[in-house]
């Protein structure tokens, strides 16, 4: 490929492959929709056959999907609902007034090509599996958990006992209702409690304790609206079992910088010769744009990788996880990373 790139310069051979079939491009990975399965009136599962650039996924991870609507590519993330061994599937609920999700649910058919980002996220099953599992989900928070349940169901050998507490507004809007009922009858290790907000009220920590009395002794995964996540975090922390809890937030909530050292750091844009100061919680993309540097960008939420820039010196902090990472030379996502001390970008 490197030798062929001299012949296709300034393009890469990948650009020609992608033109023949978008699924052959490794630089801009894509997948083709092979089936659209309705999941109730306003949701659908899209089965996607990924192309050459696909690097695989773990159950519970999310997938950035690039959808073309009226010529413009929009990026959104959806949880993967299929086990790693099978074709990639995402289950999308059409948001009222939304642009992308209704398009995917109602106006996307077999054969549609979607751009794919790499599967991401830490909301996954550990190896080895813990002794007992608890999943607490509400609304479309069930989607990453569905991927994990299907993975557990496909495992050879014994599976740890698992409780799923899922809340939906009412039965018609409950994703995977039939599938969950069927799975529960097929396997012995799964207990499912469905609760409906319209009749039962919200899924609160008290109700969780009532439905699953041994919740403190289970490894727990919680996914749903931020009210549920916040309540779960308070409850698990109060009982001293916060370490057993994993939460997945669908919305990007930038973390404050660690410690009290909230001072700005000097940032240098090496190629444009611009120097400025960066606040510890401001994405480098915004820092650069405010300083007048032409910054590459895509979707600005950490999912499409259009904003990658080489780090020349220094380290950055990921605003999603709070982690300080990246070594000089590494490509960093400027839209979700802030300066962790003085640094230079090759821009």
């Amino acid at each position, binding site marked *: 490929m490197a030798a062929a790139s*001299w*012949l296709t*310069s*300034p*393009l890469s051979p990948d*650009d*020609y492959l*992608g*033109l023949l079939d978008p699924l052959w491009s490794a*630089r*801009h990975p894509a997948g083709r929709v092979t089936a659209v399965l309705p999941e109730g009136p306003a949701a659908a599962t899209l089965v996607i056959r990924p192309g050459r650039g696909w690097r695989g996924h773990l159950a519970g991870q999310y997938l950035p999907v690039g959808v*073309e609507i*009226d*010529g*413009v*590519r*929009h*990026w959104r993330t959806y949880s993967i609902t299929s086990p790693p061994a099978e074709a990639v599937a995402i289950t999308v609920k059409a948001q009222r007034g939304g642009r992308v999700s209704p398009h995917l649910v109602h106006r996307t058919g077999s054969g549609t090509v979607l751009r794919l980002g790499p599967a991401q996220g830490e909301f996954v099953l550990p190896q080895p599996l813990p002794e007992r599992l608890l999943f607490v989900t509400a609304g479309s928070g069930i989607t990453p958990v569905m991927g994990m349940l299907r993975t557990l169901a496909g495992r050879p050998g014994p599976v740890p006992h698992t409780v799923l507490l899922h809340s939906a507004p009412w039965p018609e809007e409950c994703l995977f209702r039939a599938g969950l009922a069927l799975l529960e009858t097929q396997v012995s290790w799964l207990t499912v409690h469905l609760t409906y907000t319209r009749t039962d009220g919200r899924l609160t920590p008290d109700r969780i304790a009532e439905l699953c009395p041994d919740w403190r002794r289970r490894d727990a995964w919680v996914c749903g609206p931020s009210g549920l996540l916040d309540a779960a975090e308070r409850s698990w922390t109060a009982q001293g079992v916060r370490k057993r809890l994993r939460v997945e937030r669908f919305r990007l909530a930038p973390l404050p910088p660690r410690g009290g050292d909230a001072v700005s750091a000097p940032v240098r844009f090496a*190629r444009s*010769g611009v120097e400025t100061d960066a606040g510890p919680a401001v994405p480098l993309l915004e820092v650069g744009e405010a300083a007048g540097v*032409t*910054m*590459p960008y*895509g*979707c600005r939420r950490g999912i*499409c990788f*259009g904003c990658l820039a080489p780090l020349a010196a220094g380290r950055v902090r990921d605003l999603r996880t709070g982690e300080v990472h990246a070594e000089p030379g590494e490509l960093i996502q400027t839209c979700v990373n802030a300066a962790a001390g003085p640094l230079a970008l090759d821009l």
Partner: protein
Amino acid sequence: MPTTVAPLSDPAPAAPDADRTEQLGRELDRLRAEVVAARGADDARYIRTVIAVQRGCEAGGRAALAVSLFPPAWMAGTALLAIAKTLENMELGHNVLHGQWDWLADPAIHSTTWEWDFASPADAWKRTHNHLHHTYTNVVGRDRDLGYTILRMSPHQPWRPYHALQPVYAALLAPVFEWGIALYDLEADAVTQGRKSVRAFLRDASGLARKAVRQAAKDYVLFPLLAGPSALPCLVGALTANTARNIWAHTVIFCGHFPGEVQTFTEERLADETRGEWYVRQIQGSANIEGGPLLHVLTGNLSHQIEHHLYPDLPSNRYARLAPRVREICGRYGLPYVTGPLWRQYASMWGRVLRHALPSHAGLGSRDDGGVERAVDDAPGEVRQV
């Protein structure tokens, strides 16, 4: 054909009065907003089609040149490669690097990621072209594209004895235009004037060297080697295609700003320039080429140079539909809309190269091609409109 129209509202001003100018600005802003709102799937399909056709021509041309000992293969290969390079350079490279397609949000067709099959690296060109040329269009001393630092194209530029030979330089530049642009983008004159550091110059020069090696290696070494017994005709084919593309690019670009009736401006014109005045300067400083759809595509729609200068970041495929409306607006505001068939714009451009090879004084409008060239401080008795 040109027709002489009545003088402007008062005795021959260079532009409409201030209120009218701002009204014009708002009208042109509305036209822009209309196109921005209408951009959609058809435009996306257009650019992707051009990309597919261009890459198809390139692959086909290379394949044919690989067996170019056979003369018809040489003819076809050279022609396909020349078309591919022209499309790549003009309708794709120039326009993508202007950010015309950034709204697609496709990282593969984006001004920040695109690199083109042209000697000048995209970054260097975006600085001199998008920033300097499009901001300071036809302003003597600010727009370095006004003669590319070697030619004298305006009575406001001081005459030097070396200008006497400028018809020769202009002719010699055409076949090697991409290399001329690449050297020009290094801005060596800015280093001698202290506007650019030696360090920045060396950095740009090494960037150019890297690009140049790959460009030359591909066309003149690697593909000929792969062609085996057809090596020599393959090399000659690539050289011919590049030369044809260069002469064509030179032609289109010189016809966009240098036909006789296009105006040049002094730096005073820039002082406190409003949006409306900026639009007026872009109109007065650009010229269109008339022709069919094929001509427009092969010029990268720079045949609609006036529309391009008003809206450099709107998708190029929209210019043709904007042109009659811009022309109508120009007519209503008494502004010139310089346009004509390629042969006439080309002849007029050469007339200007020849005319300014000889000393002349600013303020003395001189006639050429039956048109009137005015500098801003001229007071011509008539305005020609076409």
